[in-house]
């Protein structure tokens, strides 16, 4: 069976800068795959490519049996690719409930309805609040709920746990496990919270300067010397991994 997402030879250039070079990455159904690496490694650019926000300079991508070809954000979303943004992009004047409603389409049913999603990410009681009035962490959680409301096959999360407190991270991790397990969703997780990556992800790919420098199980890549120097920092040891 072909993987849910198959990326081959993908490159993106910004003028003279190779933000992504010859990237290969495969992600199966129900798999949670971490994409990590130093700041500016090209992770968000990869998410932008898969979700149609960034044209490729070279390479090809497949979703299941289908070649993705020239994607626009709208066509990507309609093929079942949902995403969050590293800087929250909410519908600020709409309520929390309406943010989720804009995304949910009848016809395709996910496991949860909008109200359940809001509760599952931990925003119960805030349904009527305007999104722009939420605290930062609450905004990040709403982004996740909205992406899930699209009932996607593939979920791209750009640092969903950044700025979240421990309880909310734990809740988010449980939710992601559950949707990957029960719905067979593939999840590509960009995240700097190494503890979370270790606990939650089945596979990990590490990028640096647009290139893949390691891939495999999270535990293995996180102890790879190249990854330690480029990403974790020289003095990093397992005990210093960030509590989350």
């Amino acid at each position, binding site marked *: 069976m072909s993987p849910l997402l198959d990326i081959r030879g993908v490159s993106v250039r910004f003028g003279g800068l190779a933000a992504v070079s010859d990237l290969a990455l495969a992600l199966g159904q129900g798999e949670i795959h971490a994409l990590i690496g130093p700041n500016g490694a090209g992770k968000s650019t990869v998410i932008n490519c898969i979700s149609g926000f960034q044209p490729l300079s070279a390479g090809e991508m497949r979703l299941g049996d289908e070649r993705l070809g020239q994607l626009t954000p709208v066509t990507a979303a309609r093929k079942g690719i949902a995403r969050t943004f590293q800087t929250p992009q909410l519908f600020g004047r709409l309520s929390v409930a309406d943010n989720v409603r*804009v995304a949910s389409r009848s016809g395709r049913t996910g496991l949860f309805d909008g109200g359940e999603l809001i509760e599952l990410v931990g925003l119960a009681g805030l349904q009527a609040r305007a999104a722009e009035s939420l605290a930062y962490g609450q905004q990040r959680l709403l982004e996740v709920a909205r992406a899930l409301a699209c009932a996607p096959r593939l979920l791209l999360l750009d640092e969903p746990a950044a700025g979240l407190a421990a309880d909310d991270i734990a809740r988010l991790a449980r939710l992601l496990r559950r949707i990957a397990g029960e719905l067979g969703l593939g999840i590509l997780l960009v995240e700097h919270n190494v503890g979370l990556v270790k606990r939650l992800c089945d596979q990990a790919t590490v990028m640096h300067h647009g290139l893949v420098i390691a891939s495999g199980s999270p535990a293995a890549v996180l102890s790879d010397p190249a990854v330690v120097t480029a990403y974790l920092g020289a003095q990093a040891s397992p005990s210093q991994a960030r509590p989350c």
Partner: protein
Amino acid sequence: MRSVVEPLSPSKAGAAPHKSILARYRPWLVALAVLAALFAAAPRLLSDYQLYTLNLIQVNILLAVGLNLVIGVTRQFALFSGALLGIGAYVAALLQMRLGVPFLLSLPVAVLATMAVSAAVSLVAWRAGGLYLAMITFGFGEVFQFILVHADAITNGPDGLAVPRPAFAGVSFAAPARLFELFLPLTAIAVAGYRLMETGSLGRTMTALGDSEIALASVGRDPRMAKTIAFAIQGAYAGLAGAMFAAAVGFIDPYSFGLGVTLQQLTAIAVGGFGSLAGAVVGGAVLTLIERGVMDLPGVREIVYGLALLVVFLGFPAGLAGLFSRRRASRPADAGR
């Protein structure tokens, strides 16, 4: 999520969750009653001049409601309200004069034509944002005016057109009172229709478009489509307003539909409060009254507009409508726990 938002003072939030049907529709019923009273009483009690003003108020309200959707809600900086009003007015007038189409039939045609033009402009210009869209639509308005002036075989050029007074089944609608009776239901339906749109799923999409185009695309909604719909709706309201304007004033010329109209309307929705339907209605009405009040005093109009804008933006940035909705808007309906 622990939220600490609590009302400062006890609020009415959390009142009976199942309101009776009567309570639910009370705002609508109140509006209906007020309109019915106005419909019955105004033609009897008011002078022709006052009724004429009321008719113009309705024209400006419709125009403001349409512009408010595009600028206040979807935040597309389109500056061609004047031209759209002109399309509605000229289409209705020319249909009546050149083809003998009755007024009531010319109305929907004017609406559709203006809608189509507005939507077409959006389809051409949808990628342009901010200042570029402003310049494109501004340019459209200038070209439109140029055409009106120079296609004098059809439009009678700068001399303008004397528009026939509407008549229907032998009854003339020449008197302001008769026009008022015709206009009020149309305006009421148009505004009520907007309210339904605004509170429904289309309205959500329109607000979402104004808040984040990329987020809208990311959930599979096409921003281009959403923009085109917004422009089409604006066109419909401006087209209706234009046809009513031609009938109410009885004379149209190219200079009535320039950038000045657009800027007036912009002032109206700014004073009323960007994005708010009530604001557009109040703003459109206030604007007309100012306009009528200072008509004969050259230069005063601009000063009054300027002052109105300054007072609103320095004093209450949410506009006149914000004064009434502030309490409601900041009431935390959740007190989340």
